[in-house]
């Protein structure tokens, strides 16, 4: 392989593995900006992956090539439904955010496999008829040199994620809704004094995390594992949380961190083809994203970076 091929391989496989992480990490950002910790992202991804797989199998003949994209939507919708459990528990029922998230993570794999068995009689769905596959990004891949590297033979969902990241940045920092969402995470009492509906904002944050987390799971199922089973989502939700922190709760930074973790995950698989990297023991590549997150937490991020009232239950004043 020549240098250009190697770079192309690194970029495209990083993006493929990054795609589910980008969306899920953005979801986490919305939730945490509203002050609700969502360690249930892993479970939400599981449900998104499950739903998209079911959708894919049952509707592939109807929708053909559009199936994965509609499956993405189906995953997002079930993600919203599932995130409502977290929203009700943490916002109305004053449950501890970590306990509620743990419940989501306990329930989702069990429910997903339970339903899969109920429908298919087996613990896995088997291969999906229509997957995202590998595509060229419309026209952009014809740009000389950088075109094939960045946009050729690559993952369309990753570019979808990048677009969503830019939109998320705009929503969070340039719109009234974003300002209100952030104010609720920083100082809910002050926000309420100004007439902002604190609970509604928190619900929006958590439901957006459900939508995006479900979509992330759907991408994992339809672009990477190409089936649904207990091992389809194995820690990606937690890595997405790491990306969210690494990116300091800023959508653009979060996206960058997710792509970096995608790079880290892909290295363990394609590392053998790449000079220099092939000499690094694969175990180091496997644990690198986790260690890096810890180092970033300690070195780069001080205590003040997270939303001020993250993880605290807000009780409305009468």
């Amino acid at each position: 392989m020549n240098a250009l091929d190697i770079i192309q391989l690194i970029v495209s496989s990083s993006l493929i593995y990054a795609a589910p992480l980008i969306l899920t990490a953005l979801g986490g950002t919305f939730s945490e900006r509203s002050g609700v910790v969502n360690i249930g992202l892993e479970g939400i991804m599981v449900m998104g992956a499950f739903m998209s797989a079911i959708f894919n199998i049952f509707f592939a003949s109807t929708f053909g090539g559009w199936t994965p994209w509609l499956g993405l939507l189906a995953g997002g919708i079930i993600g919203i439904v599932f995130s409502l459990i977290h929203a009700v528990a943490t916002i109305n029922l004053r449950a501890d955010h970590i306990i509620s998230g743990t419940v989501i993570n306990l329930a989702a794999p069990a429910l997903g496999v339970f339903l899969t068995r109920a429908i298919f009689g087996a613990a896995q769905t088997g291969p999906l008829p229509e997957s995202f596959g590998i595509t060229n990004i419309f026209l952009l891949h014809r740009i000389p040199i950088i075109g094939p590297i960045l946009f050729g033979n690559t993952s369309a969902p990753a570019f979808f994620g990048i677009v969503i990241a830019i939109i998320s940045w705009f929503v969070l920092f340039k719109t009234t809704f974003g300002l209100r969402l952030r104010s609720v995470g920083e100082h809910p009492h002050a926000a309420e004094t100004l007439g902002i509906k604190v609970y509604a904002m928190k619900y929006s944050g958590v439901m957006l995390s459900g939508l995006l987390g479900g979509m992330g799971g759907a991408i994992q199922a339809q672009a990477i594992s190409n089936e649904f089973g207990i091992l389809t989502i194995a820690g990606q939700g937690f890595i997405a949380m790491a990306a969210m922190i690494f990116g300091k709760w800023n959508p653009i930074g979060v996206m960058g961190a997710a792509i970096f973790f995608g790079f880290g995950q892909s290295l363990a698989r394609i590392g053998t083809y790449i000079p220099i990297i092939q000499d690094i023991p694969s175990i180091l590549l496997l644990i690198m994203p986790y260690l890096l997150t810890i180092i970033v937490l300690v070195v780069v991020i001080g205590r003040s970076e997270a939303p001020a009232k993250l993880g605290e239950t807000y009780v409305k004043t009468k």
Partner: protein
Amino acid sequence: MIRQSRGFLSSLVVPILSIIFGFVFGAILMLLFGYNPVVAYDAMISGVFGSQYFLGEALRQATSLTFTGLGFALAYKAGFFNIGVSGQALAGWVSAIWVALAFPELPQLVLLPLSILAGTLVGALWASIAGTLRAFFGTSEVIVTIMLNYTALQLTNFIIRDILSETGNSTESVGENASLSLQWLTDLTQGSRLNAGLFIAIAVVILYWIFITRTTAGFEIRAVGLNSFASTYAGMSAKKNIILSMFLSGALAGLGGAIHGLGTFGNIFTQTGLPSIGFDGISVALLGLGNPIGIFFSSILFGVLNVGAAFMPNRAGVPDEMASIVTAAIIFFIGANYIIRYFIEKRASRDQSPTTATRGGEE
């Protein structure tokens, strides 16, 4: 006096109602999918209690969960979420097996305690990473322990594949001199894997209770958990207590992993995910509301649920994941106990004086 009795009442009512609601939720779900919940629950319960073997297996499962549950509860008492119990248990498991395999010549009286100690210590040190970072840098122990979980998983698989085994996916079994199995217990339960770990678990439950309620160190951990500012003002070191509580929490999880390894399996094999005793331990601790006796009984309930689940597919046609769904539902109601307490208080205030309205929620 009234406060006390009400506290005692709600501390028992919440877990019991949560268990009932959890089972009812499972039953509704089964009805929705056309299964018969009565047959399913009957299969589960009669399956476990119908034979000494499965009862032994349920107790064996409960043994491991008691340790991880106590581990989580100890950190929780100090105000920390040790989501990393599964990683610490795995670290303890692999370390105990490693030591047991490395010194096969030692007599049982030396090797068994040494292996268990190794597992305990490695679990403790693994958790201490999170405790130390929290104490000195304010780093979230939730995120750090999650990251350490996956690090432990990858490292363990690496150790099994590249260091401990020739064949690849599992190590050799440890010798008789490092095994926790007791012949009379095995005979009594018709060949189940129930082992001496059960007695260690009961001893640890008692020691845990003494430590938390009767020692200065235990008092400090509770005080820091209740109000770290006040404790610091009273001259306790918050840093010391953070690290100590995480160290002990990890030690319990590591001990659980070691006993899981030496008692249940006698070896270790590559894991596709984190061991379930970790997350089930968290559930057990939450259901037991941090009380060691409560944790012990919760562990037995979970042991029965886990082992009984295997009877549901054959006898009732229900996928065995149903048990995990019931588990999750139980913990949901524990977490959202506000709703249960809300109704209890509403009833209590109605019984006592209809005019006194308790300050309710937002509804």
